[in-house]
């Protein structure tokens, strides 16, 4: 494994996600990354308890049902908490975004003035290429 992974602009990243070790080690997650490569945000939804969970598993961690389907996300959420990581070569924003579908996820807030970000702020999904190949969901203020 190399150094800090970080993200890069989405140029050719969409095409090489299959060789990404973070995809290869988790075969059941492939549909998520295939959709993400095309800018589509999927969420795992349980057919039994009808709840969405995060991070995705092929079973529902809430009720343990193995009947879970990928469903398109609204792409909307609010900032649950965040921190501007100042002591970094290039400061960035680590955050938890609470999705409109219920769960919260770790992510980055991008294309935002650091000082304008606040808890409760509405955000929408965008995608950035991770260095190892897959595209990951990030969020930007609405």
């Amino acid at each position: 494994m190399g150094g800090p992974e970080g993200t890069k602009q989405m140029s050719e990243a969409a095409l090489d996600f299959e060789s990404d070790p973070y995809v290869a080690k988790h075969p059941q997650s492939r549909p998520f990354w295939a959709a993400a490569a095309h800018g589509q945000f999927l969420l795992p939804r349980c057919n039994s308890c009808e709840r969405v969970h995060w991070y995705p598993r092929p079973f529902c961690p809430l009720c343990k049902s193995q009947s879970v389907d990928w469903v398109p996300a609204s792409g909307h959420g609010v900032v649950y908490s965040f921190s501007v990581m100042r002591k970094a070569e290039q400061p960035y924003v680590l955050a938890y975004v609470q999705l409109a579908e219920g769960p919260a996820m770790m992510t980055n807030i991008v294309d935002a003035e650091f000082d304008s970000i606040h808890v409760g702020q509405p955000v929408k999904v965008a995608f950035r290429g991770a260095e190892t190949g897959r595209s990951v969901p990030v969020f930007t203020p609405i």
Partner: protein
Amino acid sequence: MSATSKAYIAGAFEHPTRYAPTKSIADLHFECAQGALADAGLTFADVDGYFCAGDAPGASPAWLADYMNLQLRHLDGTEAGGCSYLLHIAHAAEAIAANKCSVALITLSGKPRSLGVATGTAVRQIPPERPDAPWEIAYQPTIVAVNAMFAKRHMYEFGTTREQLAWIKVAASHHAQHNEHALLRNVVTVEDVLNSPVIADPLHRLDCCVITDGGGALVVTRPEIAKSLKRPLVRIAGCGETVKTQTGGYIDLTRTGAAASGAVAFAEAGIKPADVKYASVYDNFTIMVLIQLEDLGFCERGKGGRFVADGNLISGVGKLPWNTDGGGLCNNHPANRGGMTKAIEAVRQLRGEAHPAVQVRNCDLALASGPGLVMGTGQNHATVILERE
């Protein structure tokens, strides 16, 4: 009577070094083991149970048992991050009660300072096969930024302030001035904390613990052996442990596993938070102390900021003497794992062997508590309650 109430901490040793470039991690484990056994008045030949965690070279008891040539009939390599050693106290007591061993040795050591590890600010390395890895690593999570998000949310929900968080560091520094081995012995003010550089908003440099080489060890034994030794009797009165999961994404960043581990430990000991005379609470970051104090029941939920302010954690000044060795914020954080030193200072207090300037009078009940590992919003957690007999 529960299993854990039948064992005693007979030996405790904190390695005096904070920088050990010329020693191996295994050597430091040996020196800590030697120190704790000498403190108890026991020898390596008495040890029949051995406990260590992920800091042990090889991440298994096997390599250090071989290195120290221990003759064992019980071993436990439970890895729960920084609180591992608090879990080991509980597990050792259980093993002794089950007659699996009589003298249990617990060791910790590490050299992050001499190895130049940027513990809190480096992006966490997550092996690709770990289930959370694909969903977190690309966002460059650091330990300090994750803790900063706890702080930000607590401020949002309860109005907690940076000044209140700073009081936790101020208390640690008041204690550390009396500890000749502490890495940072200067007394600091709230202003000093707020004027230190922002690392991850809202946490400043002085909200973060130190990075040190060193280690520590404990010896846990059965009542008849403990009572045959010359040391004061420190009984393991109650223990709790848990993993606070991320609950499938339905998170709460204003609580820790301390609520669960603390409740179990208090129930087992049959005491209330108000009975505790001294508390060691793991201080990797100021915010983590504040939330654990709420979760453990020392104050109401959301009121931790007011509880820690104005010196309430300073021995001889406030209501809850806390981390009187200077804690991880000022004294020592060997191997980036704070559970061991928390137990050791609690033992010192119960024996009446803390520095006279910070010794709590009539200290008969103490608590040691802390988190371990960082799994996004979740963590391991362990609490131990100790009683002077």
